[in-house]
């Protein structure tokens, strides 16, 4: 009877867990580089007290930095959310709770991703160059 748990018709073509695992390795590596870059620019080269609206606006004038920040947002959010998904998968065993917690997680991640992307993409500096 217990056989079914494992031998139970492996669903061929379902590589979700494989991709999720691989994504964690790759995003983890990229995040190390991106975060170090971010820290160096925002906290070492420039002190926190010189960072203000104008500083960010000037930085985001270049599409490159917007892309950098968006990648950082995207990877950190999904890496974190996937980590939480895995924890839920391990520890929340009751079916109903699982559906609920995962739904909350996905909703939050989605909202944060949309909000963040919106800011990065639609940002338009005001009062610059004065």
């Amino acid at each position, binding site marked *: 009877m*217990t*056989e079914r*748990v*494992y*031998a139970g018709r*492996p*669903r*061929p073509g*379902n*590589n979700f*867990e*494989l991709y*999720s*695992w*691989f994504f964690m390795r790759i995003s983890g590596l990229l995040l190390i580089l991106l975060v170090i870059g971010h820290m160096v620019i925002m906290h070492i080269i420039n002190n926190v007290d010189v960072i203000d609206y104008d500083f960010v606006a000037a930085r985001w004038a270049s599409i490159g930095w917007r892309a950098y920040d968006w990648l950082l947002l995207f990877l950190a959010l999904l890496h974190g959310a996937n980590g939480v998904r*895995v924890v839920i*998968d*391990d*520890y929340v*065993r009751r079916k109903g709770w699982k559906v609920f917690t995962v739904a909350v997680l996905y909703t939050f991640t989605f909202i944060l991703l949309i909000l963040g992307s919106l800011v990065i993409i639609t940002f338009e500096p005001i009062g610059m160059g004065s």
Partner: protein
Amino acid sequence: MKVELRIKRFDPEKDQKPRWADYQVEVEPTDRLLDALHYVKWYQDGSLTFRRSCAHGICGSDCMLINGVNRLACKVLVKDLGRRITVEPMRGYPVVKDLVVDMEKFFAAYRAVKPYLINDEPAGPRERLQSPAERERYDDTTKCILCGACTTSCPSFWANDDYIGPAAIVQAHRFIFDSRDRGAAERLEVLNQREGVWRCRTIFNCTDACPRDIEVTRAIQEVKRAILFQRI
């Protein structure tokens, strides 16, 4: 030397839940913990129940939680355990009685990875030849004695006993990387499920627990890589 054994006991006919029992035992420092358990069973309390067969670290029957870590009772010496020794059944499987756990699920996982040579090609006039290098490739995982130390030391397994577990992956590894075997694809398919290798969180408890010094976590990573690149 005198040692105190604290044994977690459970008699399904009498006890609602496990209880601790203490035994004073006179042992030689070079005695194994198994000898101390024998002493209790033979001279103090015949109802103490545990598995053992070979008593020489080969059959894998007597893995238990000794001072909080999975060890074979026949392989650890009393002098390495201190004066007060706690002994408990392995974690994660239902306790049948005292130190005996129900390992049905463990062997179901084992059977699921098809732990036997799969090859329909004719063997040739004499044998399926293999070079020393090809034999070396999976040498580490041939050492497994199916004691369950790795699987029952794994927090992922404690959290979810549907996880196929390190031991079954080690057994799969032994055949997947065998140049004479042709069943790798079938086994990788079984291991590429949610309850397969992806539940491994690289915690390394298994490598630590293995009484045969198999690099279990490495074997699991090699299987993951084989699935990822579809190459052995």
